[in-house]
Structures are given as C-alpha cells and as structure tokens.
C-alpha cells in the first residue's frame, strides 16, 4: 500500500516537472499531497501512533483543501495561466529530473529507505519548478512540492512532539497563505505574475 | 696665538689680492687672444669707480636687494678665514669643508633672489639657469668631500692639506676627482662653458643677468664677492688636492716656499681657466647640463677605483 502510494508520488512529481499549464500542475500537486497524507494515515494505522494521524490529517486539510483554494483563487484572476516561455523547456526538464533523480538514488543506493528517496525526488522537482519556471505561482507550487519532500523526510526520520509537528505544518500553511496574498498583490501591481518583471532590483 | 694671527694675515692677503688675481686672469685671456688687454690692477679701478657712484634701484626691489649684496660680500669674506693659504697645521679647529661649501649657498641664494627681485626678464632667466646649473653641480661637491675624506679621514681643510702635503705621487682617482672639482668650480663661478662672464648678451649670460639691475656700491659688493669666491674655490682646489709645498712648520723658509708655491699654483690655475675660456665657446644650457652626468659617472669611476684597484 505504502509502496504504491510512493509510486504515485514519484509519477505525479515527474509529470509535474514538464507540464506547462499551471492548473494541471496544481492538480498533480493535489494528488501528490493526498498521497502523502494517506501515507501518514496508513503509518498511523500500522503503528498506532497519534503523531502520524495528526500529520496526515493536517497535510490533507492544508495541502489538499486550503492551499489549492488559495492557488485557484489567484489563478482565476490571471489572464494567462500557462507558462509561456520556459527557461528550461518541458522536454529537457523531464530528462533533467530523470538524470538528477538517478544520481541521487545512486548516491543513496546503500539506503533502503524509500521515503527518503522519494523525498529527494520531490526536492529535485520542487527546485526545478522554482528555478526553471517564470510564473510566480509555479514557483509557489515548486516550493510546496519541496515542502512535501520535507514531510516525507519527517515521516521517515523522526518522531517529534505533537506541538512541534503541528507548528511545522501550520507554518507551511501560513507560508502558502503569504505567498498567495503576495501573488494577489503582484498580479494587481504588475498586471502579471511573470517573474521576468522582477528585475528592477539589481547590482 | 701667533698661528692665529698668521691665519688672519694670510686670509687678509687673499682678500686684498683677489682683484689683482682677477686682473691677471683677464690679462692672461687678453694675451692668449692676441690683444694687449687692460692692466692687471684694472679691477681695483673698476671697483673704486663703482664705489663712488650713486645707486639706481628698481622700484620693485625689496629687502633682498638692500641686504643681499652686503651679506654676499660678508659671506665671501668670512669664508676666506676658513681656508689655509700658505700655512697649515693639525691644530686648527675651524675650516670644516662642509661649512665652506654650504656658506657658498648663502651667496647663491642671494644672487638667485636678486635676479628675481627686480622683475626683469633677464634676472628671472639668469636665476632659473643658475639654480639649474647649481642643482646639477651639487653631486660634484659630494665627490670632493667623499674623496678627500677617503684620502685623509678628515673634513677639515687645514688637516686635509696638512696630510696631503707630503704626497707627491697622485693616483688616477685623485686626478679624476680633481677634474670633476674643476668643472664644479667653473659651474659655480659662472665661467665658460657654463656662462660667459664678459658678455651681456641675453642668450649667454647667467650671473651677469642676475645682477643686471644692480649698480654702484651694490654692484661693487657683488663683484668683489664673486672675485673672492673664485679665489677661495681655487684655494680649496690647490690646498685640497695639490698642497705640495705648503708650509707645515712655522719657519720663515717654509713660509716663503709655501707662499711661492701657492702663488705659482694659483697662477697656473688662472692660466688654466684662461686657456679654457679662450679655447672653448660657451655652450648651450642643455649641452652644458650634459656635462654633469658625464662628470658624475667620472666621479663614480674614481670612487670605485679606490676600492677595486
């Protein structure tokens, strides 16, 4: 069950790396988050620890419900919801993610922890989305993907106290909120959310 | 006490006779050029005439022109008392070469400033050139001091001439440094090839240009001072480099020999200057400036000769 879910996460994330339409990326992201939430719930079921339940529930509530709402809200105001000119085009993006994931798996070959491997894959894709895309909203999704990777790490590595874990997830939510508000303002002031306009400050 | 008295006397002798020597120099030059020339005591007449005249002063002139000639004369008279002439001992405490050399700087600074004082074009030109030449000639003085110090381990001219008086055989370095010093004398005293003391042509004059606006007693002081200065320089040359024959004991015969030797050497030097001045033309300022690097390298050769040979 967990392995299947991890597979879902990997597949979805690789899809994310090349898709141009922002809406589609968002949907894939929802899938991914849902899978992560389910993993956490499943682990909770297996081990019977409250931590996992809470984590899973929080993930689902924030990343599957609230954050997509924020994203959609900002998407609705956009004129163009498609990445027009990518810094790295879709084709190469796929290949790049493949190569990077291969390398990272190679480095981690001694470990049998699939959470970590998947988590690293998520990091790579998140980073790719942030570095190779121009739309602010894609960058935000990239960041959230990155954060999903962190959640996987968290699941695998440690057991923390409840308050702290709640704090972490809550902050993730807040961050998404902040980004959403900013995208709203950016769209209003710049009339676009393309980061190409973000070049006033240099030197 | 009697030594000191004699020092003063020999110095006063030089003082009194310096115009005479200038007259002899002029006479020599005239003879060499093939005309009769004025009498050898003509400079006394000239000086006397100047002293009698009233002064004409530029309305631009300042305290430099007022005190300058007097200080110049005073300085050159003072220097006379700091050199041995026909008699020397080791006891003497005055006579440091540094003071002599630097005392001439007093004369130099006043001449140069007098040139600038009267706001004429010639004066400025003369001052500029004089400063330039004396700047280039400065290292030659160093050679003199260095070499004499190496030879005698002393800076006192009395001691130097005392120690050098029994040298009869002069080595190469000695001769070379002497030549550089002679060049230095020519430069410092405004003689050909650096300057022509006889003409008042604007292109050739330096010393004369600076004192162009002086007259009467002022000119008297300056002229006399320049006579004395030349003779003092020649005395340094004679008693520093070729003091042979100078009296080292206070006996009549020694003093007589010393006197005769001194007069002979001085006349020989004057003849040398006369020969140079009649055979060489005054050269362009920058041509004569080229003489200095040549002399400097000569001096370096001389000093290194001492150490390597």
């Amino acid at each position, binding site marked *: 069950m967990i392995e299947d879910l991890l597979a879902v996460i990997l597949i979805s994330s690789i899809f994310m790396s090349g898709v141009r339409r922002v809406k589609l990326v968002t949907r894939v992201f929802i899938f991914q988050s849902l899978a992560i939430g389910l993993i956490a719930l499943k682990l909770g079921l297996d081990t019977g620890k409250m931590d996992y339940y809470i984590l899973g529930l929080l993930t689902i509530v924030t990343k599957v419900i609230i954050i997509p709402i924020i994203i959609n809200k900002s998407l609705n105001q956009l004129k163009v919801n498609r990445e027009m000119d990518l810094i790295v085009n879709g084709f190469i993006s796929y290949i790049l993610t493949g190569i990077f994931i291969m390398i990272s798996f190679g480095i981690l070959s001694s470990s049998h922890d699939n959470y970590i491997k998947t988590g690293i894959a998520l*990091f790579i894709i998140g*980073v790719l989305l*942030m570095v190779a895309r121009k739309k*602010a909203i894609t*960058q935000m999704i990239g*960041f959230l993907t*990155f*954060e999903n990777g*962190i959640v996987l*790490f*968290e699941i695998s*590595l*440690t*057991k*923390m*106290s409840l308050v*702290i874990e709640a*704090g*972490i997830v809550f*902050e993730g939510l*807040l*961050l998404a909120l*902040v*980004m959403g508000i*900013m995208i709203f*303002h*950016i769209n209003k*002031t*710049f009339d676009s959310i393309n*980061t190409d*306009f*973000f070049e*006033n*400050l240099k*030197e | 006490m009697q030594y000191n008295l004699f020092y003063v006397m020999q110095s006063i002798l030089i003082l009194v006779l310096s115009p005479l020597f200038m007259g002899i120099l002029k006479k020599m030059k005239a003879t060499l050029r093939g005309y009769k020339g004025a009498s050898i005591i003509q400079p006394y007449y000239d000086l006397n005439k100047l002293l009698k005249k009233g002064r004409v002063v530029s309305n631009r002139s300042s305290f430099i022109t007022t005190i300058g000639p007097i200080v110049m004369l005073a300085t050159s008279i003072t220097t006379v008392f700091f050199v041995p002439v026909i008699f020397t001992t080791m006891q003497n405490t005055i006579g440091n070469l540094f003071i002599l050399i630097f005392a001439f700087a007093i004369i130099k600074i006043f001449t140069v400033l007098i040139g600038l004082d009267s706001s004429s074009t010639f004066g400025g030109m003369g001052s500029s050139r004089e400063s330039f030449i004396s700047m280039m000639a400065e290292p030659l003085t160093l050679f003199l001091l260095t070499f004499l110090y190496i030879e005698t381990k002393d800076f006192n001219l009395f001691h130097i001439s005392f120690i050098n008086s029994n040298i009869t055989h002069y080595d190469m370095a000695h001769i070379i440094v002497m030549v550089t010093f002679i060049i230095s004398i020519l430069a410092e005293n405004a003689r050909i090839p650096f300057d022509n003391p006889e003409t008042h042509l604007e292109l050739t004059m330096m010393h004369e240009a600076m004192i162009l606006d002086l007259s009467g007693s002022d000119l008297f002081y300056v002229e006399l001072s320049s006579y004395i200065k030349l003779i003092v320089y020649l005395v340094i040359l004679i008693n520093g480099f070729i003091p042979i024959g100078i009296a080292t004991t206070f006996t009549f015969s020694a003093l007589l020999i010393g006197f005769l030797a001194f007069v002979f050497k001085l006349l020989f030097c004057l003849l040398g200057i006369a020969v140079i001045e009649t055979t060489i033309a005054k050269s362009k300022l920058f041509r004569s400036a080229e003489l200095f690097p040549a002399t400097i390298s000569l001096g370096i050769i001389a000093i290194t000769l001492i150490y390597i040979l």
Partner: protein
Amino acid sequence: MYIILLGILFLLMIITPLIFKNIKATGLVTILGSLFILSITIKIIMLVSRFHSLSFFNEFFYIDSLTLLQLLIISSINIIVSIYSYKYIQGEIVEKKISLKRGRLYYFLFNFFVFFMIFIALTNNIVAMWIGLEGTTLTTAFLIGFNINKESLESAWKYVIICSIGIGIGFIGILIFVNGYSSGDPAQILKWSHLAKSSTPQSTYAIKIAFTLIFVGLGTKAGLAPMHTWLPDAHSEAPSPVSAMMSGVLLNLALYVILRFYIITKHIPGLSNTRWLFIIFGCLSLLISSFSILRQLNYKRLLAFSSVENLGIIALGLGIGSKITVFGALLHSLIHALGKSLLFLTAGNILSAYKTKRIDKINALIKTMPINAVFLILGMLVIVGAPPFPSFFSEYSIIVGTVQSGNYIITALYSLCLLLVFAGFLKVFIKIVFNAEPGVTYEKLEIDKENTLPLSLCFILIIVMILFMNGYLSSMINNAVSIICN
C-alpha cells in the same frame, strides 16, 4: 516567571493593534512594552550572571550567556526601533502614504516579529528555533512588502522564496541531525542543552551532511554570500525601521542558530573542521559584498551589502575559532547591530526628507540636515571600525586571530575587504554629507529635527558600550566565548 511575564507582554503587544484603532496609543504601548522587555532582559542578565545558566518549562527555554547577548541585542534595538516607528508610522499616515489599517498591521507584524526573535533566542528546542526563524520570515515578508509597489513586492517575493527554500534546506538538515542522535532519549533529543552535553552520535557522516545543510540553509537567512541575494533587495525596500531590525538583529539571530548547531557539532570528534564552512562562506561574503559596495547607487542597498560584509566578519571570526576571534565576532555582532540600526534609521530620515534612495540626488546634507549628517558620519565610523568605537576592537581581534592561527591569506583577504568597504563607505557618505554642487544654495530643512531621539539613543548606547567594554560586557562575552570554545 519572567518567561510568562514576557509571554503576557507579547500577547498584549500583539493584540493591541488589533483592538485599538488609535495608532498613537498602539505606538505608545509598543514603546512601553519594549521598555518592559528591556528591563526583563536586564533582570535576566543579572540572574544569569549569578547562576550561569537558567532553564524554564522542562528545559524548553534555556538561557546562558550566548542567549543573553542575543537578548541584549534584540531588546536594545527593539526599543530604539519602536521609538522610531512611533513617529515614522504617524508621518506615513499623515502623508497619506498608508492607511490607518496598514499602520495597525505594521505594529501587529512588528510585535510578532520581535516575539519570534525573542522566542528563538530563548528556546532550547532546536526545532523550535527553526519554527521561530520561519516565523520571522512570515512576518517580515509583509513588512518588506509594506509599501505595496513594484519594487517592494519584487523584493518581498524574492525574500519569501529564497528564504523559505533556505529554511527548508535547513529543516532537512535539522531532521537528519536529530536522526543522527535517535538512539538517545526521545524526550531529550530536541533539547540543545542535552545535545551539547551528549556523547557521540551514531553516524558522524550524517551529522556532517546535516550540519552542511543547516549551514547553507540557515546561512541563507543569515545573509551569507552567495545565498545573500535576497538581502540587498529586501533591506533596501523595507521601511527603514524594519531594515534596521532585520539587518542588526535578524541576520545575527540566524547565525546564532547555526552557532548553536555548530557548538554541538564541534565537540564530536573529527567534525571540528566544519569550522572551515564558516571561514569559506565568511570570506566569500566579505569578498562579494566589499566589491559590491564600491559601486552602489542606492544608499540603503549599500547598507544592506555592508550587513552581508559584517556577517561575513562575524562568521569568519567564529570560524577561526580561537578565543580572541570568537570574542571579536560576538562583540562585532553587538556593535554591528547598534551601528547598522543607527545608519538605517538615519537613512530612513533622509529618505523621508528627500524621497529618494539615490545617492547622486543627495548633496550637502551637513547644510540641509546637520543633525542627521552628524549621525550618518558617526554611524559610518562605527561600521567601518574606527576607534574608539568597539567595532575597531572586534575587527582587530579577528585580524590578530587570523595571524595567530597562521592563516595569512585570510588575513590579507580580510584586510583587503575591510579596505574596500572603507573606501566604498567613505566615497558615498562623504559625498552625501559634504558634497555641494557649485551655484546651489542649501537651506536647512525643517524635517531635520524630526525623529532624532532614537538616533541619539542609539549613539548613547554605543557610548555606553565603549564605557562598559572592559568591564561587565567583556565578562559576559567571555562567558559566551567559553560556551563556544569550551
């Protein structure tokens, strides 16, 4: 007791702007609150000097000399900045630049920001430190984008993205770090005081990776080059009080968190070489910022680069690791906070008078705004390390340390960077203060007298620091040094 008091105080301060409509009252409450915070800090300092270290709430809060230093910085800058904000926000509202609502939002966020910083300094839980840092990102993101315009939004966006990524990386590092100690008591594992004392972890390899991740990740927040790119944008666009707070305190605090991990890492056999991370990134920061300072058109940006440079100095001092350099680094963090706040606040005054951040538009400040000009020059002298300001001693002790440890190349590099920064600062500030265009008559501006109280307060604090440098302050810093160097 004090912690609870602090908590209540913050609760009040945060709630006030939400309840009260009156901006003046809010400002006053904030000033009052910061005064209380300062007094509590002083009280805590006195306590700690007696007990060496304190802990509260099942060791969730832990206070030692290192904490004290941070507390001192936070609370002293806080009071200066809140006094400054009082007039600043009112002025902005009067000029119709911002609405009343935004003014209240400012206080809300500002107090939250301070809360998070004090939280970071006090907490003993390493994940809680991270949470605090993340919290500062959240609050300052809005503060940076406070004047909603193109530039500020751009800088805010960059800030949020870059810093959250950095903090994310840092979090991964923390996870791995904690995992490296997973054999220990689960209840204690997140406690710094426990980790610092505990025996070796299972895998030093993992700790190595973890510390690198933490260093690079949190280094982003601390503004170490080449992760500093958000910093000049953010500091130049944020309102001046916020810039002062961020530059003087926040960067320092991020470094403090790294330092906490470093103290743990350092004691593990074979890992003391991680100090080279500090040295290398410190030198990089120094190099990049010092060259960047040479050609700036915007004076707030210049100050931001100088912050990068000073953080580089602090990191270098920590990295060299001998007692004298660590002392220098800690002293420098203190004086840099004060000096940089002085400069940023003065810059804020100039900005509100001239309405431009461009260096070439401002001339002859000594004629137009003499008071601010004097503070600007004094601040410049503090930052470039002219004696008798403590910055001279801190910078010098780092030179001594590098020479003593035999890293002559670093000495040369460090001196070169100091020189470049000096040249850059001098060129700009002398130009601003003294340069007079021919034919222009300069009138004294009325605005000069506005808002100079916090500046003089800041300078008085610096003077106080000079006076106490050989006494109480140095003993406190020495205690902190012994925590780091042990």
